[in-house]
């Protein structure tokens, strides 16, 4: 109920001037470009997250190094920061006056970067406990049967991690699709170029086009819903296929 009531309100709002205006709002080139950017950037972010997040979780669980506990805490930082602060930080680091001489502000890359930053913890935190729980004897069993480290990883460890990776990726995707705060500053919100769907919605609200904003919101909502369903299906399939 808590989730459904506001959601249905958005759906109602989006169609209160009829389906034509709904369709017009959604199919306007600017809205379409914003949706496409959000979708593509989110997919990229999820793929990078699934891989890098798993690697980070692996390093945090299996490797011993100085500052491990500090690094472990740093992973959660994107969760703790207000996203606008994340955006500010990214702008300071990778903006026009960043210390690395790397200026990505107002590019599509900045969109991906910001989304990567705020979604980093999802996969890491999903995979980490599973990796901790993995029975090392299982790996030794594979080894004694003649498996190399790589074969053991690919055929024994990774299949055990799939459900966690998928679950973490699903959350990361949902977050990326809806992300707003970290994008506003660093992307410059250039229509047709770096304006993400969430920012587009905000600008529509500001220019008093609430119906248009709601329409795009509904599409965003649908995408998120379908993708989450997809992730759910995938994780059930993995569990079924792999035991």
């Amino acid at each position, binding site marked *: 109920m808590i989730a459904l009531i506001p959601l249905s309100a958005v759906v109602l709002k989006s169609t209160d001037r009829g389906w034509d205006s709904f369709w017009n709002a959604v199919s306007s080139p600017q809205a379409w470009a914003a949706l496409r950017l959000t979708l593509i950037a989110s997919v990229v972010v999820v793929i990078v997250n699934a891989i890098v997040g798993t690697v980070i979780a692996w390093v945090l669980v299996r490797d011993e190094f100085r500052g491990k506990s500090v690094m472990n805490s740093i992973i959660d930082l994107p969760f703790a920061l207000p996203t606008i602060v994340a955006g500010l930080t990214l702008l300071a680091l990778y903006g026009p006056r960043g210390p690395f001489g790397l200026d990505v502000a107002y590019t599509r890359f900045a969109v991906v970067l910001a989304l990567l930053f705020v979604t980093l913890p999802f996969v890491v935190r999903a995979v980490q406990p599973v990796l901790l729980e993995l*029975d090392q*004897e*299982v790996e*030794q*069993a*594979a*080894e*004694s*049967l*003649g*498996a*190399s480290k790589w*074969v053991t990883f690919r*055929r*024994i460890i990774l*299949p*055990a991690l799939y459900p966690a990776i998928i679950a973490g990726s699903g959350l990361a995707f949902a977050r990326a699709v809806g992300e707003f705060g970290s994008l506003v500053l660093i992307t410059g919100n250039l229509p047709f170029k770096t304006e993400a769907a969430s920012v587009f919605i905000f600008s529509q609200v500001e220019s008093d086009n609430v119906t248009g904003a709601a329409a795009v919101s509904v599409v965003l909502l649908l995408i998120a819903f379908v993708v989450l369903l997809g992730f759910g299906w995938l994780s059930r399939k993995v569990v079924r296929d*792999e*035991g």
Partner: protein
Amino acid sequence: MGIVVENVGKKYGDFVALDDVSLNVRDGSLTALLGPSGGGKSTLLRVIAGLEEPDTGTVVIDGEDATGVPARKRGVGFVFQHYAPFKHMTVRDNVAFGLKIRKREKAEIDERVRELLELVHLEGFAHRYPSQLSGGQRQRMALARALAVKPKVLLLDEPFGALDATVRKELRAWLRRLHDEMNVTTVFVTHDQEEAMEVAEQIVVLNHGAIEQVGAPQDLYDRPANDFVMHFIGPVAPLGKRWLRPHDLDILLEPEPGASEATVQHVLHLGFEVRVEVKVEGGEETWVQTTRDRARELELADGQQVWLRPAHDPVLEPEAAA
């Protein structure tokens, strides 16, 4: 041939897990590593498997120096205490794993897996997942998985440790038969002396990281090398300054030179076996194991006056090793 372990030492920090251990395991034999937990038996098994690297010493398997050879190249089958099943694979895929990564022909793999599942009586379970098996079935699956790659030696770590008593008994007899059929050099770890006596041809008693004695089950029971083995390998009863097996004490109703006077404290009837708890003159408490018929013949009752005599020469003077 078989396994030759020479001067193997292994420390974890200050803890000495193995202290200069040397051991010969004959080709095709069935050997038990027996000892209390922390005695080093599992460590020794893992050193043989290559899952643990010894600080010193060498391991020779089947005539080849295996020291420093990684586990995956040793040709060793290892069965873990908790079976370490690949949970995301069916029984069939678990057993086929070693063959698959060796890139064997599918037909060959199918045939071998079928053979093995038959051998371990899991024919009907090929498409189940480990979570759908009982403990004993998982154990047998792990065994089939280890045997699939035709290992030169088979190593089992507490193979029956996690099973309930009935299944345990069944699997012991089955493992012995299996070994007779397969004829692969087998070493298993156990802390249960009865299990070791029942299954193994040769028992290696390990304590504090060192070998106390190696021998056939009967040898260890009748001629323990020291106090520790005497106590670990079977029941003991004190008499005077000696340790005896409690069934090596004769109960007499009349005094006799060399016999000690004692009072019956309690008679316990355990079916065929009767346990007689006695207090020897001077206050020492000991017990005698006898048969139901013998106890009936003596008409033993609580509080009765009896005399105790060793049935034959003691196996061990307590001062020898204590």
